């Protein structure tokens, strides 16, 4: 039995979610949910996963970055920047498509069957995440400091929906003493979480497209990453199927290394002539059917409609 690309990806996403959140028993501790406090938390996870989630076994790279830059002694975190650079150069936004727990949550939400037309975001929306990265992750923890020179993790504090969903709700619901400290900030974060969850039902990966600073970092590194998308222009028949199936609104033929591409592989699976390859290295095109030079037709009908367009 051949396992589809979608199923393979979903299995990897679920495994990654489980590995990031392997301490499920911490939700059911006596006296309320407790955090895992072992040594693995000195390592960062590649995806967005709040380290204040009781089940989390690794640190969130965005939270870790802010905690170091917001500390008294340091304004830059070589450790986390190095980690993000290494992961980004190796994998780019493959992390978003396969390894990010919050990405999986959004994809599951997008499956809720609502009577909906295909919602599209305005073109400027994809640039908001770069502003979030610069202002909330890089600048505010360093610039907005208290009297002893410590800055707050502004992205975690004001925006991060993963923290509210996986950390805030389980901890506050099992700790009555924390419930007494709820104020405007928690209300704001709940409002934002609900807005993002509704957005994710209506728009595929709403948070990834608009607000995620980690997606912004990996998006920039998509341009140079080892893991890349390659289009064989000799095989491509320009049927447009790849752009049609892309949930991130990318045209892989025009922009194979787009900063928005999460390397999910839907385009490669949809290509009728096997012209798209995703992986490490450059396209060799060994197992793809060759097109007939003049017509663009492979002779095996894949309903690409090239023949109809060219009146063949």
């Amino acid at each position, binding site marked *: 039995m051949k396992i589809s690309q979608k199923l393979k990806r979903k299995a990897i996403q679920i495994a990654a979610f489980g590995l990031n959140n392997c301490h499920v028993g911490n939700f059911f501790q006596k006296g309320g949910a407790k955090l895992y406090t072992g040594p693995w938390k000195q390592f960062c996870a590649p995806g967005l996963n709040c380290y204040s989630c009781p089940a989390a076994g690794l640190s969130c790279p965005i939270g870790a970055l802010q905690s170091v830059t917001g500390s008294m002694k340091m304004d830059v975190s070589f450790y986390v920047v190095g980690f993000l650079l290494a992961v980004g150069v190796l994998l780019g936004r493959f992390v978003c498509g396969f390894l990010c727990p919050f990405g999986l949550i959004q994809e599951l939400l997008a499956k809720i069957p609502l009577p909906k037309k295909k919602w599209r975001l305005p073109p400027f929306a994809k640039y908001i995440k770069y502003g979030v990265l610069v202002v909330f992750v890089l600048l505010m923890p360093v610039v907005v400091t208290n009297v002893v020179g410590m800055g707050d993790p502004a992205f*975690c504090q004001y925006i991060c929906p993963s923290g509210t969903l996986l950390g805030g709700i389980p901890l506050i619901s099992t700790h009555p003493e924390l419930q007494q400290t709820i*104020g405007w900030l928690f209300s704001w974060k709940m409002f934002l979480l609900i807005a993002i969850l509704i957005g994710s039902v209506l728009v595929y990966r709403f948070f990834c497209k608009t607000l995620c600073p980690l997606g912004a970092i990996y998006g920039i590194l998509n341009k140079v990453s080892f893991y890349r998308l390659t289009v064989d222009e000799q095989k491509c028949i320009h049927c447009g199927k790849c752009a049609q199936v892309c949930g991130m609104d990318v045209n892989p033929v025009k922009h194979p290394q787009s900063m928005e591409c999460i390397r999910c592989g839907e385009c490669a699976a949809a290509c009728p002539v096997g012209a798209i390859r995703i992986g490490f290295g450059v396209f060799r095109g060994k197992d793809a059917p060759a097109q007939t030079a003049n017509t663009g037709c492979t002779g095996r009908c894949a309903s690409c409609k090239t023949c109809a367009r060219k009146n063949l």
Partner: protein
Amino acid sequence: METKPRCGTGTGWTLVRLGLLGVAALLMVVGISRGEVAIVLKKAVNLCLECIGLG
């Protein structure tokens, strides 16, 4: 149709990528030697009130 060389596929680009990986490794070594790992661990094992919306 002639195939245009795609940006990012040459040997030069591979060297750039390897160089970036080297820089990343160097940054991590510098960060570890400065004691950043301890700061990350301390923040991660204690309840982050800001993260959950209480700070």
